[in-house]
């Protein structure tokens, strides 16, 4: 089966019967390249964590990065693998600009039989000036990850 990261991301995020939390947040596929994939989180009033500033809450940013890094693992494996997030660490480097779309970029660093290591950044237009950086690990929940060339 050919791996199509665009179709996978759109299926997970933009198919109403499938896209639970990501669909409610309004997340959608943004872009991908060799070794990375991006998911977009458009700004919406429902996402605000601080009404004084209109800044998006941290929850949707974590959800965005969870999805982006998860997709990055499948992108590296070139196939879907059932897995669960083991842990996720996020550093908020600066506040998101209010009313601005946020892009979550995930990269998979390495896949072992059971564990996948990832990193990612969230930015609002300029990847060189990120809002947040994350490190997340995943564990395969049904069997192992496939062998992936280093």
């Amino acid at each position: 089966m050919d791996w199509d990261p665009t179709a996978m991301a759109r299926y997970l995020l933009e198919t109403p019967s499938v896209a639970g939390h990501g669909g409610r947040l309004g997340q959608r596929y943004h872009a991908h390249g060799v070794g990375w994939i991006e998911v977009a989180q458009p700004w919406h009033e429902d996402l605000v964590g601080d009404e004084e500033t209109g800044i998006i809450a941290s929850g949707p940013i974590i959800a965005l990065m969870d999805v982006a890094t998860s997709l990055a693992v499948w992108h590296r494996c070139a196939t879907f693998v059932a897995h669960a997030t083991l842990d996720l660490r996020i550093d908020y480097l600066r506040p998101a600009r209010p009313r601005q779309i946020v892009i979550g970029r995930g990269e998979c660093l390495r896949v072992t039989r059971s564990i996948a290591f990832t990193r990612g950044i969230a930015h609002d237009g300029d990847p060189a000036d990120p809002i947040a950086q994350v490190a997340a690990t995943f564990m395969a929940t049904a069997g192992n990850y496939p062998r992936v060339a280093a």
Partner: protein
Amino acid sequence: MTLPPYAGLLGVTLELVDGVPEIVMPFGHHVVGRPGYLQGGAIAGLLEVAAVAAVRHALAAETARIKPINATVDFMRGGRDHVTRAAGEITRLGARIATVTAVAWQDNRTRPIATARMNYLIERATG
């Protein structure tokens, strides 16, 4: 204490249990990730709302901005089709930094589905 608009999106409510804030999140399609399980981001969001509620509660009447610095979330168990509750415990509340541990559980608090440690910058209103 009022919760932010994002809490409405998650569908969570605040309850005071023995005077301590707990955040309650019913299950629903809007918080689902893989079929039948809560999305990790929704669990993390719930933990974050609980952590901020704990800081607000500790600051009581004091006016302050609470800004997230970082968060480390550990997922221990899949979140199933049950009500999830979360509470934050302040590890340290200093002049500028609050460190909070938040726990999310379903049926049994001693079997958490996720925990998180968060650091917040506290900007107190000056005199």
